[in-house]
């Protein structure tokens, strides 16, 4: 006999299943991944050979004495013509070579303008990608589609929203013909959990007013000052989560740091973690990752990407609060587990969840960062 509890479970599972939306181009994605996997296997063998040859060469060079290493900067190839209005990540991809924009482009009728530039960045591409990818607290990851990364001269002509009160007064970053690392990505795969009764929203329906938006329609463009000032702005195109239209807007970008912590006991005897928070950061969340053999706790802080000193620190303690404490459920006792998670920039944005997460991005060719 099916009772009320079983019925509820079956209904929830069916509701969840009904919310699933098959992404377009699934077979093509699968084929691409298989090709990439085969290429990686071949590259792995080739890399082993290259490393062996490289090591031999380095040994030979060391015997001959020190030599100045010149950075390899690919030549900028600028395509002629007026600025292209781009609405999809695929269109942006076609304009990028050697991590540089090769033709002027605009997003949303000029809300963001990007032009090719031959200037040299202080912040490296790798540092910029890692800052962008660190936009989720330690222990949590958001899966995104592979972003496109390039250097450009950028102007953001919409006002940047003020930071939340939790961050205190800040100097608003400005991007007016400024050299910046640009990261462009789309919202494919995003799913909004909508309140009961409202329509759910997925990538396909996210762009209101664009009935025929491309499947890889640009959702966000992040500009990170290439002068290593720490300033960054993220521009979001219009969307419609849960049938509620959210117009395009620009915000100050954030990144997450995993902080070192020590365990202690609070005044009421409950377990707490003590952390040292940099002045430029605000304490965020923490998570504990358990496996059969070990457990790791990570405590995160969020850094607003504005020009502000970050040398000072402050001490904070955070009580452990187990999740799932709901109506009618007894409050379980929190247990502080031993083990420290990795500290530093998180890898919060990933393109694949397998193996703990990795990030693939395009700057003229594909690169992958592993967690």
């Amino acid at each position, binding site marked *: 006999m099916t*009772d*009320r*509890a*079983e019925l*509820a*479970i*079956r*209904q929830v*599972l*069916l*509701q*969840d*299943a*009904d*919310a*699933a939306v*098959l*992404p377009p181009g*699934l*077979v093509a*994605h699968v*084929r691409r*991944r*298989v090709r990439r*996997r085969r290429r990686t296997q071949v590259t792995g063998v080739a890399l082993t050979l290259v490393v062996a040859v490289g090591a031999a060469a380095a040994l030979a060079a060391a015997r001959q004495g020190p030599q100045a290493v010149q950075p390899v900067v690919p030549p900028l190839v600028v395509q002629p013509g007026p600025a292209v209005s781009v609405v999809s990540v695929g269109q942006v991809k076609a304009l990028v070579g050697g991590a540089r924009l090769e033709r002027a482009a605009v997003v949303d009728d000029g809300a963001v303008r990007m032009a090719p530039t031959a200037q040299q960045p202080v912040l490296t591409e790798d540092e910029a990608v890692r800052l962008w990818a660190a936009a989720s607290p330690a*222990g*949590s990851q*958001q*899966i995104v589609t592979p972003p496109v990364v390039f250097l450009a001269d950028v102007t953001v002509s919409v006002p940047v929203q003020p930071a939340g*009160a*939790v961050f205190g007064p800040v100097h608003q970053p400005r991007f007016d013909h400024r050299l910046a690392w640009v990261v462009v990505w789309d919202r494919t*795969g995003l*799913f909004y959990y909508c*309140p009961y*009764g*409202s329509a759910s929203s997925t990538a396909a329906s996210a762009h209101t007013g664009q009935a025929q938006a491309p499947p890889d329609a640009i959702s966000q463009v992040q500009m990170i000052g290439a002068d290593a000032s720490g300033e960054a702005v993220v521009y979001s195109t219009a969307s419609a989560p849960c049938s509620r239209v959210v117009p395009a807007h620009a915000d100050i970008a954030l990144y997450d740091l995993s902080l070192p912590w020590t365990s202690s006991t609070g005044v009421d005897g409950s377990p707490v973690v003590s952390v040292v928070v940099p002045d430029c950061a*605000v304490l965020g*969340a923490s*998570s*504990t*990752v*358990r*496996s059969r053999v070990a457990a790791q706790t990570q405590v995160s802080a969020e850094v607003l990407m504005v020009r502000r000193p970050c040398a000072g620190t402050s001490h*904070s303690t*955070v*009580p452990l*609060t*187990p*999740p*799932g404490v*709901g*109506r*009618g*459920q007894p409050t379980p006792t929190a247990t502080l587990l031993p083990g420290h998670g990795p500290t530093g920039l998180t890898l919060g944005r990933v393109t*694949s*969840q*397998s*193996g*703990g*997460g990795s990030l693939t991005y395009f700057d003229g060719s594909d690169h992958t960062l592993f967690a």
Partner: protein
Amino acid sequence: VEFDEYVAARGAAMLRFARVLTGEQAGAEDLLQAALVDVYTHWSKVQGADRPDAYLRRVMVNRHLSWRRRRSSSELVVSPERIASSAVQEGDVDVDVAVGVADRDQARRILAALPPRARTMVVLRFYADLGDVEIAEMLGVTASTVRSTASRALSTLRAVLDAEPVPGVPHD
């Protein structure tokens, strides 16, 4: 059946299964895609099998459990400032409008709190309608473990529902 034809015919159903397994859309897409990559590389064998659905489901279950073993967030600490800044306003949430919504809400909480292996057992039993023996074979456990896990999940939910009777719904 060619791979493309199979995905066209069964892709949506398999994504639904991945969705209930993971509890989220993005994770479901990633899981299905990863499983299809595995299946695609052995398609000539899978094609000849009697039940490619069962094979793909098994690949998804194994991948899901191994991913979850690597990382699973089980505790959350939130600073008071963060709670204040991200608190949901009461007016933002719709009030329950139908009988059974509260039950489903509790069921959702209990499902979300289940360890991955237990959730997988519940999904295989109540969504995929597999028998205890079949589930046990798939997960490498005994049939009695499957029975007791499903029974524990149901008992927990029953206890919670009994503690909070929904107005207008008669129950013991």
